[in-house]
């Protein structure tokens, strides 16, 4: 697709869908509904919130009712939405959410919204921030999960049609052409060359992560993190794979109608694991930080075969006391190595 016709395509989409994409705002990037296609920014560093917010909204009504019980109905009400310009790390995030909300009990609210959401990703050709570690997490590219995948070729975008849903987005649009063998060579060259620009930032291979965390369950590092963590919950709010939620009832002022609402919750805040009698099953900050890392790096791997972190680095960028997964995981690894009696000096020589 020549770049010149991108806005035509987006405007066509806008006739049928809510179209959202990364736009610049106050020096940062956010996913927002596009009012003008000029706002769409396809070269950007991670948005403040991941596009997860369109699939798992920060606040969502599950059930509407009359307080006297004469009426109660599930609220499933979906806006067909196209998300443009998703980084592949965020695609991996959605793949994990899909797995969670489809496993065991179906979550019809999620599924309905997901069905009506079209994911269009763009290949990252360069690293974004110092906090990201997608190369380590294997999320610097994505072969599935998205419906369309864009690759920037300079004057045009190469588009990989991944699903039938993706095909639908291009139906009837005649300004995109089939790629020629020469285009394919160029695409492959661009893709192949990008890897040199993506550095590994963890000191160990990711397949070791679940085992490392298991061994580090009683590490002092969790206490050290607990000492500095503010329990603000920001790391989980900006995470593309966090999905924990609270459910509360709200009544209107006339006390006639009410609704049951779910909203994002965070395992980092004090009352997350507290029961009505007042007992808190995860009282200590250290235990809460540990739970976050264990869950992302081990529990989810064990339960669904996917690592619960996509390496986007948002939690690191947003942490007020600079708790970053790169530092935490490398420190755990270093301590584990030290425990094994391997001198740090040796590691540097080997590296």
């Amino acid at each position: 697709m020549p770049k010149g016709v991108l806005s035509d395509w987006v405007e066509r989409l806008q006739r049928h869908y809510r179209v959202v994409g990364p736009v610049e705002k106050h020096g940062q990037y956010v996913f927002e509904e596009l009012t003008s296609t000029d706002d769409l920014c396809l070269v950007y560093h991670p948005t403040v919130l991941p596009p997860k917010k369109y699939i798992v909204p920060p606040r969502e009504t599950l059930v509407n009712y009359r307080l006297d019980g004469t009426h109660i109905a599930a609220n499933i009400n979906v806006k067909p939405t196209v998300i443009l310009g998703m980084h592949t790390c965020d695609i991996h995030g959605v793949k994990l959410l899909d797995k969670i909300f489809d496993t065991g009990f179906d979550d019809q609210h999620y599924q309905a919204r997901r069905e009506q959401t079209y994911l269009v990703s763009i290949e990252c050709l360069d690293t974004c921030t110092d906090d990201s570690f997608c190369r380590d997490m294997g999320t610097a590219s994505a072969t599935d999960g998205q419906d369309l995948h864009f690759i920037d070729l300079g004057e045009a975008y190469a588009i990989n049609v991944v699903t039938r849903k993706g095909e639908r987005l291009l139906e009837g649009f005649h300004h995109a052409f089939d790629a020629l063998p020469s285009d394919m060579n160029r695409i492959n060259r661009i893709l192949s060359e990008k890897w040199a620009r993506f550095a590994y930032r963890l000191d160990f291979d990711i397949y070791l992560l679940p085992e490392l965390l298991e061994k580090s369950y009683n590490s002092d590092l969790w206490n050290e993190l607990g000492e500095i963590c503010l329990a603000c919950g920001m790391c989980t709010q900006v995470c593309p794979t966090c999905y924990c939620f609270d459910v509360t009832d709200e009544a209107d002022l006339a006390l006639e109608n009410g609704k049951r609402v779910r909203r994002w919750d965070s395992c980092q805040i004090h009352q997350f694991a507290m029961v009505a009698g007042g007992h808190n099953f995860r009282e200590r900050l250290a235990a809460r930080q540990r739970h976050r890392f264990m869950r992302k790096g081990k529990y989810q791997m064990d339960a669904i075969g996917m690592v619960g972190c996509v390496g986007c680095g948002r939690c690191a960028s947003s942490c007020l006391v600079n708790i970053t997964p790169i530092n935490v995981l490398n420190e755990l690894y270093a301590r584990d190595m030290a425990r094994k009696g391997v001198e740090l000096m040796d590691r540097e020589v080997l590296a």
Partner: protein
Amino acid sequence: MKRMIEELRQSESIYMPVPARIAEIRQLTELESLFVVELPHDVTLHHVPGQFVQVSLLGVGEAPISISSSPSRSNGIFELCVRRVGDVTGAMHRLKAGNMVGIRGPFGRGFPVQQFRGKDILFVAGGLGMAPLRSLINEVLDERGNYGRVIILYGARSPDDLLFREELGEWSEREDVELHLTVDCPDSRWEHCVGVITTLFAEVEVFPRNTAAVVVGPPIMYKFVIRELEKIHIPKGNIWLSFERRMKCGVGKCGHCQLNHLYTCQSGPSFAYSEVEGLQEAFS
């Protein structure tokens, strides 16, 4: 008759409560009442002892409550023993017979009743732990021939805090039930043991080879009771526990009930001690 959980799975939303009627409310203690709940006529709860339901009150919220009645006595109704302690349970205690509540469930894994067949069963209940245990106790008593000895150790704060006193009276008169009671704060008429639940272990002799222990009580109780059970050599796989946790969804999504890697609402709330032994968050 449709099973409640199937009704829920096939409904438009897994979060939609099924309306149910409070048929009767019996006050058990100052803080606890028994709610007799009636489901719509074509739906049956079909639960296993140890499972729980999410009870909702419109405008207030939802709370996970263990089922107190046994499947053997369900007959279109089920019972919830509820302590007045939070928002939802507080509002429940203001309900009258005839009022409606919402029910979702039954959720979670109950006790492995089949596995207990032929065994002596040692029930250890602390305080409100009697609420879920009563479901299993009555299930066992209604199929009494399937089990060996039935030993019940029950501890409460004071005689007035004992739940199901009528049934305790019946159990104490049965020859095939060994009931041992203790309270922390006795009154002048109290004739039984005084002290924490573990003091009752001195009163019973069990045959570890053929005993299953089922323990439910406040968080602090578990490690002390487990220590006693290990002293008398009950295998870890034959010690069953039930855990309270915060639960918002009941269906393994919301994350609140996680205990290390386990979702209490899915893998539990009933666990064999062998399954959770090394997990710090099980006994936090």
